[in-house]
């Protein structure tokens, strides 16, 4: 962590946030005076803070933290699985989507060699976790889950 360099990531992020701040102020023009005062103030403060950050980051290099190493592929796969989970809840139904996405995230997270025994164990875990929670919420606590097109 001793390699001093310019905090490029921080600079990029600050510029993006400043741009968001500008957009926020721009959109606030349609609001009523009382509704606009809060977002305008905050956005302006954010722009100033970002500017200060960029100035400091350009002037003096600092020790930059290296991001955690790891498999980018698995991260992206997990992101996709989570997004699918949230988006398919209503069209496919809560239970079906959850079974599919639970299985998908399980496969993404597994680093062991797949053996029949492991597969059976994890299938059992899945049924137990999904079954218990779904059962309790749906039947005991009357949470209305979407049923989807197939049910």
């Amino acid at each position, binding site marked *: *962590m001793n390699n001093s360099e310019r*905090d490029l*990531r*921080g600079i990029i992020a*600050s510029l993006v*946030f400043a741009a*968001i701040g500008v957009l926020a102020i721009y*959109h*606030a023009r349609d*609001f*009523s005076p*009382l*509704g*606009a005062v*809060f*977002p305008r103030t*905050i956005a302006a*403060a*954010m722009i100033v*803070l*970002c500017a*200060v*950050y960029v100035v*400091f*980051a350009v002037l003096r290099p600092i020790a930059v*933290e290296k*991001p*955690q*190493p*790891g*498999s*980018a592929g*698995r*991260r992206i*796969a*997990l*992101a996709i*699985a*989570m*997004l699918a*989970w*949230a*988006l398919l*809840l209503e069209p496919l139904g809560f239970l079906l989507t959850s079974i599919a*996405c*639970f*299985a998908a*995230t*399980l496969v*993404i*997270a597994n*680093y*062991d060699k797949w053996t029949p025994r492991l597969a059976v164990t*994890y299938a059992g*875990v*899945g049924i137990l*976790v999904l079954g218990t929670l779904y059962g309790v*919420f749906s039947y005991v*606590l009357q*949470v209305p889950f979407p049923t989807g097109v197939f049910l």
Partner: protein
Amino acid sequence: MASRDPSTWGNGHVPGIEFLIKALTPLNILLAVGGVIAGTVIGALPGLTATMAVAVLVPLTFGMEPASALIALGAIYTGAIYGGAYSAVLLNTPGTPSAIATTFDGYPMARRGDGDLAITLACLASVTGGLVGAAFLLLLAPPLAKFALQFGPVEYFWLAVFGLTLIAALSEGSVLRGLIGGCIGLLLSAIGTAEVGGDIRYTGELKSLLGGIDVVSALIGLYCVPVLMDLVATPDPHLKLTHEVAGFRFREALRIAWRSKSNLARSSVIGTLVGILPGAGGSIASLVAYAEARRVSKNPSSFGKGEPNGILATESSNNATVGGGFIPTLVLGIPGTPPDAVILGALLVQGIRTGPSLFSEQSQIVYTFIYGLFLATILMLPIGLVIGRYAFKSIVSIPKAALVPSVAFLTILGSYAVHNNAHETQQMVVLGLIAWVLGRFGFTASPIVLGLILGTIAESGFVQGYLIGNAKGSALMEFLTRPLSAGIIAFILLTLLYPLVKGRIGAPKLPSNE
């Protein structure tokens, strides 16, 4: 017994002591045990919050006697607030908003192998805080409720500003980055239909955003999703086990807690007082208590790196808000915290009329309930220790391939159950992915969440104060000259200037990672 109750037991004037025996019926004890267990488990599951625990279990209490129903709800509530510490410590994911500050030191402790100690500490602190809050409820409820009413919109505005200055004080690493994160949270809080003024802001034609960003679903996403992303990236185990899980490490925890008794007492009182303020709640209480503990500490740099005092402060203060929050709920009929709103509704269905007369006219119900709350809080010690140990063991021993999908499912379930709607689930995942990206750019989740929580309080306080001040003649005078406002402003200045006085940050300094 580890409880250190500062109340005036034994001075012969404990009100309603004759109802203590009424609280101790077998049914009530059973309800308290069941409530604490149910609450703790729900609170411990990431994504399922205390408000939700109370809300989903409320229907089960409608058939009960009023006092018993209240005991059950109080037990669920206090259990859930405590349970939130488990996932904060073991997964770096606050189980409820009240446990946000518990992640600061709880997770670092778990990372170095002290997760079991952290949980036992949380249990001791929660019981202490809970007892202090309940003692205030028993002894000082009516005068404290009057105090809470002194807080008008202007005071809430300054209180929120105070909370925001704490973000700066608490940011690990760069203060600037923390402040920018806070601004992002504040801007996120503006999304949706403005409660005050009715403007529709930044929804981008998305109907699902009309209701705004839900704090709880944002909390789940911002904390849980990055944790999951990092879990799947490497085959390393989630937490290293450095020793045999044998006992509770109870003696060790007790020693630490005893050494920090002033921290526990201070944090419990802060928690009670913040809990009394309607609309503030456990998240702000634990934040204030944490910042105070760090400010007073001889060793402030150890905070954020696994300092037991951090956990003691947050967990005692958030459980103290339970008793504190019941004060305006019972005395004034105004809910002190979000779960209290649900409990107040249950009281109305039960036909109980809250208000100042409740303590005289329906004293039996009130005092039976308060002693029931003491009972539930004390029961939390054995129950919490046992569940905590089990939670710790299972989190460290189950393989990633089972842990990741289970936690992922809980985040989906929890965010759905916030409003029984998939909109919140989608918000949760999207915010979570953004949080992960921001994390890679050095921006942490906590300032964003705090900005989101404080944003609505700050904005409505400001607009309401402005309207009232204008009606009175001058908005500026309204904001600056009310005595309580002036007091809070003084606190804000103290917090901001204290580091200068200490000579720590003399000149403008670079954002660094020390």
